């Protein structure tokens, strides 16, 4: 299988390990990701806060690139996914908006590209059985809560993915890797997103609540699918015992036994290696066999 790939700015910077683990796991699964040539920033929160046309025209240019490539467009970042779906939705629904965005973005909208979150591609195209076949190091003993945040599941009419109140896809994916995914009620609560830089106090309070609830549920770590969430979970968590947070793609790489995974852990602001070591999930291949 081959896909068009829109990494988004974060996967090349603050969410580096999301990009690295996405590319490594897809390569391992034999799925080809063709990065859109000369893609641009989706505009994220700032564009839709200040300029409606711009907020749809920026993602629309990337849609135009994907139209040319004629393949499903895979997006690892929840915020980028949300913005590209928003542009697609706006142009699909209303001819006037469509004309306005086409003019601003300098493109012709065909509506022919399926825009898909990375998580959906993993769950649907690889499938849970497919994932299990690739697991050489089951994540036995690892207890996590899955954390979606907002933009992957809301607004539901636009993003059309999973259940916005009680999402099921990420827990199923992570369970198929051998980890235990605990039930909790905060999977789609907001982390504060882009407010992080200007009002760190608010985000620290939201993230603090998330960590407290995750711990109450019995989790040793979060699993996330969004570089903004991951950043806030790692940067705005205070206190002595912080909960590490993984991208689900990192857990895939770990369970697949990819040697590159060791490089991802060093990118984290909250080092997940003490936890992984305590469970015997990092170390030499010899140990791996013993654990598996």
């Amino acid at each position, binding site marked *: 299988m081959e896909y068009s790939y829109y990494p988004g700015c974060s996967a090349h*910077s603050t969410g*580096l390990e999301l990009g690295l683990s996405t590319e490594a796991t897809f390569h391992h699964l034999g799925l080809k990701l063709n990065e859109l040539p000369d893609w*641009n920033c989706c505009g994220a929160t700032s564009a839709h*806060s*200040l300029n409606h046309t711009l907020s749809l025209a920026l993602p629309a240019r990337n849609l135009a690139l994907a139209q040319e490539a004629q393949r499903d467009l895979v997006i690892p970042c929840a915020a980028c996914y949300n913005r590209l779906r928003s542009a697609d939705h706006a142009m699909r629904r209303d001819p006037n908006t469509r004309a306005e965005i086409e003019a601003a973005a300098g493109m012709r909208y065909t509506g022919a590209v399926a825009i898909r979150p990375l998580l959906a591609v993993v769950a649907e195209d690889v499938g849970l059985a497919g994932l299990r076949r690739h697991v050489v190091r089951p994540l036995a003993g690892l207890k996590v809560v899955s954390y979606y945040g907002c*933009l992957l599941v809301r*607004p539901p009419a636009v993003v059309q993915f999973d259940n916005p109140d009680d999402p099921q896809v990420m827990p199923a994916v992570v369970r198929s890797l051998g980890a235990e995914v605990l039930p909790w009620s905060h999977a789609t609560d907001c982390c504060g997103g882009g407010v992080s830089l200007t009002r760190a106090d608010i985000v620290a309070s939201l993230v603090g609540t998330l960590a407290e609830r995750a711990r109450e549920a019995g989790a040793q770590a979060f699993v996330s699918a969004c570089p903004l969430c991951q950043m806030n979970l790692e940067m705005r968590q205070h206190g002595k015992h912080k909960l590490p947070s993984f991208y689900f793609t990192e857990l895939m790489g770990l369970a697949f036994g990819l040697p590159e995974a060791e490089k991802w852990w060093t990118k984290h602001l909250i080092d997940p290696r003490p936890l992984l070591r305590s469970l015997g999930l990092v170390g030499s291949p010899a140990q791996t066999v013993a654990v598996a």
Partner: protein
Amino acid sequence: MSYGPDRILRMISLDQQQEILRSRDIWLCAGCYTCATRCPNDIDIAAVMDALRQIVVARGNPAGERDALLFHRLFLGVVQRVGRSHEAAMLGLFKVLSHVPIYKDMGSGARLFLRGKVPLLPENTRAAAEVQQIFKRSR
């Protein structure tokens, strides 16, 4: 927040423009779509918040959270010039221009830098020229 989304909507019905447009609320809304998704009257509250911010900017009014507007402007300023976001430039400018004390987040910033997550140079892409045109046409 001073009001919360429900009261902001009521204030709109009552045409309390000054109070709404001066409020911090519209800048503290993270656009999480929780209220919009659950609204029993099916009001897209997140879109309303976007519209209110856009009205403040269009009228040239001061923002209820000055740094929030500064952040958005710097973010988009960088995207306009290089076609993609570039944290080093944006964060540097924000540190100098915002009211957030300059020492705040310096530790995390340094740790991100050491992990190779804040590249010093922006990515070189041909998108930049086209993106500049999009900004021009979206005014």
